[in-house]
């Protein structure tokens, strides 16, 4: 079902974890759909992404797209990072099953959400970047064990 690349990124996710004091954080998706992605960015004063980490709740494709997305933006400028689309994510993974295409979109959105957070914190405006959709926590449900 998954390509070798996907399986590799799923089994050995790159850049998984948190950044203590991030320049920006973005969380997208919601539990109802079964996928939540969070991206941490560490951006230096020149606008270069020095470090990136992710956390993901989701299927194999969700984990793999997050992982590859971090690789695609690491070391890039904010402007370059904006050009990382769901298409480039899919290509970098040698493809995704049709039912899993939404995961690549989510990865794109996660980067955008983290960049938006970075822009807000620094009071800057990034050309071509839109406000991300509502955060997951609004929809969270409670359960008693």
């Amino acid at each position, binding site marked *: 079902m998954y390509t070798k690349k996907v399986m590799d990124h*799923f089994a050995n996710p790159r850049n998984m974890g*948190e950044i203590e004091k991030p320049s920006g954080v973005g969380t997208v998706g919601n539990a109802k759909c079964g996928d939540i992605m*969070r991206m941490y960015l560490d951006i230096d004063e020149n606008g270069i992404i020095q470090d990136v980490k992710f956390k*993901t*709740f989701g*299927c194999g494709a969700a*984990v793999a797209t997050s992982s590859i997305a971090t690789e695609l933006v690491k070391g890039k400028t904010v402007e370059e990072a904006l050009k990382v689309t769901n298409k480039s994510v899919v290509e970098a993974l040698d493809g995704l099953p049709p039912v899993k295409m939404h995961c690549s979109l989510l990865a794109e959105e996660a980067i955008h959400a983290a960049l938006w957070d970075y822009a807000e914190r620094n009071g800057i405006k990034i050309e071509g970047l839109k406000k991300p959709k509502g955060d997951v926590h609004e929809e969270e449900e409670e*359960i008693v064990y």
Partner: protein
Amino acid sequence: MEKKIYLDNAATTKTKPEVVEAMLPYFSELYGNPSSVYEFASQNKKALDESRRTIANAIGAESTEIYFTGGGTEADNWALIATAEAYENKGKHIITSKIEHHAVLHTCEYLQKRGYEVTYVDVDENGVVKLDQLEKAIRPTTVLISIMFANNEIGTIQPIKEIGAIAKKHKVLFHTDAVQAFGQLNIDVDDLGIDMLSASAHKLNGPKGIGFLYIRQGIKIRSLIHGGAQERGRRAGTENVPYAVGFGKAVELAMNSMEERIKKETELRDYLIKRVLSEIPYTRLNGHRTKRLPNNANFSFQFIEGESLLIMLDMNNICASSGSACTSGSLDPSHVLLSIGLPHEIAHGSLRLTLSEENTIEEIDYTIDKIKETVEKLRNMSPLYEDFVRRRY
């Protein structure tokens, strides 16, 4: 472990070598069409009827009440559609539950599009159908109650005898999807008041693609598949003789080993449940604690998603499932888990392990270790877990 550990026996089972052995002569040697007049083919008719008798005996029915189908799904479709059509003059209302297999639920939706009315009765937090709601749902126009014998995801066994009694009291036909129960539990259609029953061979070490519908003598339903006069004129199509013979053999083996199997599987299951619940935090068992299939365990691990868990277990040679096999690949969480009240993100993190008599305690121990490792790994990766931990401190 080098060897594959198969823990998905609710999805399908291994066709037993004895079953294959029994089928083999009917492919290239005794290949005649059972409807033909010559002696060569009439042997096949006999083989078919012997298998029918074995199956009938297993549920306390007459062999003339057993009709072979192309699987459990066809049997379910047949029971619902043909009953709806045959009893239209009485009314167009059917009662079922919210946790039926899609073979029943999607057929009900199809019937709704054709102008029939369907009531979907709720289940409690253990997945047991609410009997009071069921009885209240009965109308003068109700023609059928269809409630599964045991659930394929969470393993909960329904109060079939009580439902049979309610159906009888109100003179409504009672169909049960026993695809998961047949061969695993003792079933007597008379004792339980069952009018129609669906089963499928591949759930009890028989081949995939054959099932049967039991139709109590006197029920006047028509065909679902129209054509030749096979199966006493009720199910057309050249009979799948090898599979019918194999089904009979599988039933024979299952009935002979049932008691022992129930005992062994129940012990393994309870051991598995106990260790998982005590060793992995934020975990719940789905389905009824005791009224459940002997081979079924179904867990929800908070903060993680099921498919990831499955793939990581697969990397360790463990075959498991997150729900019903036929909906995996879809994005919706299980309708069964939602029906017992789980919120979406918990429903997404479920794992179903279904045992066979071949599983060993070593396999179970290894599996539990791997589940623990994997759940921990995925929780470390999970933003939901991160938030949970943050909020706690």
